């Protein structure tokens, strides 16, 4: 079995071998319609309901390209610093598979729409001197193609077509526009290869979201990665044989898959064997890769220019319009906000990794201070999102709500505990923060007259504590504060209570 499961430890592997990675990323575009017909491109739907003669590849049906899909692709190409072809063509990629209605895929081959760009990516881990580590990942090409249908293989052990009793095919996905983004080989990453792969996909995801071209939901398959990995002995100056790992469908998996392949290939090379050029499948559960089709017996796709379509020649004026309309890109935006909010790179990384950048920005726009906005989203709300198993952005609370809570807390109307109760009320659907405050009667009691009575009661009920304070043990006041807070059901302004206690017991 060439599938050696012997691994070399990661540190040893990268000490002896230089990894080279490359990524092919498929992104489903968020266009209203499919690439070559008017069917909805929406995710899901009852099987085989988003179909027509064109995307079912019925005899006689013909493709007509979607202008929106081409525009989205150009937008992606421009954001990745690519050149946009003045003239290019679609090509047919021929192979038989039941989920491909025509048994060829309309794709692009030697004439892609966008070529020769780059994407700068920043790793989560800062460098040894604390400054952010960035890598420039070269982009080979960006092209447009149609997605295939989806097969479901029933009755087999593996879920693969081999061994299945029967298979079901859903063609709803067939014909959804898919953009393929191919990097150049990324050299010189050394031990950071998995982190660079991770950072690239993350940056690409953020970029695609900011461009409004895709919702980029990896779990729904709207962004799918194939990761190429090879190793060469350090200093050999040559590239090793690569494997292409498919089915890498989360950011974490990208990192794990590269790491695993480095450990596996190092073991193969250590025993003097050669790495087989092949497609491998990544398994989310076990984190390992297993061999798929061998590239050495790879099929010949018999590419040729798609004769049902005319060449694609985007006018220069149109491309410039698209360029002028590009939004601020994520890296520039992060740099701008980091400066405006006066936070560190690490703090910005935390915000970004929490998926809270938009929320924090909107909360600040709604009047909160950067510190408050960060605090609420990254602590209390992150905890609640985590408990609920949802994303921050899906919580039923708006940035304006959070800003209002922060405002009430800053003005002293709410203490921390009350503020958390207000948030809980908003999340429970009880209304705006002000409505929750009113309905639950949540307000800090800072009226001295009301508090003085409670303070006197507490002193009377705890004579020994009072005695200690009178004797100069000011720290003991905490117990009395707690008693007052309890008596006022937490609504007292704790710092004012403390002042009143100390005033009572130390004045004479």
């Amino acid at each position, binding site marked *: 079995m060439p599938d050696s499961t012997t691994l070399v430890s990661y540190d040893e592997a990268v000490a002896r071998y230089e990894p080279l990675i490359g990524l092919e990323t498929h992104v489903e575009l968020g266009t209203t319609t499919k690439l070559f017909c008017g069917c909805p491109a929406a995710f899901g739907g009852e099987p085989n309901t988003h179909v027509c003669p064109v995307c079912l590849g019925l005899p006689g*049906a013909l493709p007509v390209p979607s202008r929106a899909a081409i525009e989205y692709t150009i937008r992606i190409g421009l954001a990745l610093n690519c050149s946009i072809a003045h003239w290019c063509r679609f090509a047919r990629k021929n192979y038989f598979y039941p989920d491909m209605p025509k048994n060829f895929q309309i794709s692009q081959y030697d004439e892609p729409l966008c070529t020769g760009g780059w994407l700068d990516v920043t790793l989560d881990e800062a460098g040894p001197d604390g400054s952010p580590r960035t890598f420039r990942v070269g982009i080979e090409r960006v092209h447009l193609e149609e997605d295939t249908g989806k097969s479901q293989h029933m009755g087999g052990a593996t879920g693969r077509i081999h061994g299945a009793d029967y298979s079901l095919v859903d063609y709803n996905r067939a014909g959804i526009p898919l953009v393929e983004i191919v990097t150049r080989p990324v050299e010189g990453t050394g031990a950071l290869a998995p982190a660079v792969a991770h950072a690239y996909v993350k940056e690409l995801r953020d970029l695609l979201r900011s461009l409004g071209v895709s919702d980029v939901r990896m779990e729904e398959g709207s962004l799918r990665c194939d990761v190429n990995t090879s190793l060469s002995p350090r200093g050999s100056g040559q590239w090793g044989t690569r494997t292409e790992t498919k089915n890498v469908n989360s950011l974490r998996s990208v990192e794990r898959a590269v790491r695993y392949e480095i450990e596996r290939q190092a073991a193969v090379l250590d025993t003097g064997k050669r790495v087989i050029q092949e497609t491998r499948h990544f398994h989310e559960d076990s984190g390992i890769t297993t061999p798929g089709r061998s590239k050495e017996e790879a099929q010949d796709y018999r590419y040729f220019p798609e004769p*049902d379509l005319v060449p694609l020649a985007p006018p220069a004026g149109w491309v410039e319009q698209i360029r002028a309309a590009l939004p601020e890109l994520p890296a520039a935006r992060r740099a701008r906000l980091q400066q405006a909010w006066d936070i560190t790179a690490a703090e910005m990384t935390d915000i970004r990794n929490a998926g809270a950048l938009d929320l924090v920005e909107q909360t600040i726009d709604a009047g909160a201070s950067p510190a408050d906005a960060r605090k609420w989203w990254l602590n209390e709300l992150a905890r609640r999102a985590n408990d609920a198993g949802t994303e921050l952005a899906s919580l039923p609370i708006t940035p304006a709500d959070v800003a209002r809570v922060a405002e009430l807390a800053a003005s002293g109307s709410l203490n921390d505990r009350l503020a958390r109760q207000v948030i809980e009320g908003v999340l429970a659907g009880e209304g705006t923060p002000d409505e929750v405050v009113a309905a639950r009667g949540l307000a800090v009691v800072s009226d001295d007259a009301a508090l003085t009575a409670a303070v006197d009661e507490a002193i009377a009920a705890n004579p020994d504590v009072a005695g200690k304070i009178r004797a100069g043990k000011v720290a003991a006041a905490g117990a009395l504060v707690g008693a007052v807070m309890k008596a006022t059901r937490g609504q007292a302004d704790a710092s004012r209570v403390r002042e009143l206690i100390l005033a009572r017991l130390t004045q004479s």
Partner: protein
Amino acid sequence: MAELIRMSAAEIAAAVRGGEVSAAEVTGAHLARIEQVDGRVRAFLHVAADEAREAARAVDRRRAAGEELGPLAGVPLALKDVFTTVGMPTTCGSAILDGWFPPYDATITRRLREAGVVILGKTNMDEFAMGSSTENSAFGPSHNPWDLGRVPGGSSGGSSAAVAAFEAPLGIGTDTGGSIRQPGAVCGVVGVKPTYGGNSRYGVVAFASSLDTPGPLARTVLDAALLHEVMSGHDPCDATSVDAPVPPVVAAARQADVNGMTIGVVPELAGEGIQPGVLGRFHDSVELLESLGAKVIEVSCPHFSYALPAYYLIAPSECSSNLARFDAMRYGLRAGDDGTHSAEEVMALTRAQGFGAEVKRRIMLGTYALSSGYYDAYYGKAQQVRTLIIRDFEAAFERVDVLISPTTPTTAFPLGERVDDPMAMYLADLCTIPSDLAGNAALSVPCGLAPEDGLPVGLQIMAPVLADDRMYRVGAAVEAALDARRGYPLLNDAKGLA
């Protein structure tokens, strides 16, 4: 009024419009004719008698309601079985699609219906339009109404035979390498390949996408022109459809005048390999055109000699990909689905059983020509030849208005004569292929009978891209002059059904 089945489409339409005859009567007469002769001609794979009668009655109702009728309303038509049709099967002459009822109409089918043209049924063809005799049909060949022992040409031989046998005044075919003009020529009817892109391919089951061109078959040039205008026009469902006005072909057919035109004879298509009687009628046509006031000169198109080999790389390459979809997964024949075979095996068994020999031959040729390592030498080189042929045409049309040649090297050949000799069969398209590769327009008009066999000969008239009207002008002039000289239409001499 003449016998209904002998009337031209223009005459029928006028009579229906004028209330002299109902569309239902016209359709009834043609259905009766089909009943009477199609057992011998075998032009139709499917006769849609009920649907045709209903379509005819709808035209009559529209007329009764005072609606304006289009130029071909109430005229029956024989539709090649390669156009998708709701309510009628579409087989493409193949066992692999036997019994398939498409869920949608081809754009041309829809336009015919909207124009009140009555579709009588679906006509026989070489399987997936690959052939020149209809002998590659999975459902048996059609027969030439001039001589039932001979082929009606192909691949649109069912439509040409139906028109020649007076089963329908109009037919529609598709031309990929000559599949309208060649059957038109050997059946003694008019066959037109319009400019590529002038007629929608949406709903035309593809053979070779960059070549396939739907076009009319008719007994007169004017009828062909009337149908041409009904079929044509930009279609947003076909990305290769030309967004340009339809050339004024009806006006040109009515003009029927070549005075002052310069006409080029292509020597590469009018010499070696052409049957003497065909060549004789061609030379007569040249003299006729000169007598009608045209200036005829010789214009060499040197790269036309490479057209046939280039075609037999490009067309099979495209077909190898276009026909990949016939895999038993979604529609059509399914073989081996007994629980013992994998999906891949079912695909292979179905294709082995469902495709005929010629289709398999071309799929294999094309698969080979597109293979990695061979692409440049075959498909790539053939595309270069195609460019050179386009340049030959462009240079020629700098000097002349139209080019002419015989449509086919020979008259209709006997059934069975070439079935085992693909090269001989391929040569039937020698003269027609250049215009398919270049995408320009070409028309075949009957120009007499070959003395040696008494069978019809076609004169091919080739016009520049989107100048389809020019060939109608010339074709109508030739037709008028020959009919006048003869005193009756050529088809009166067809004795196969006598």
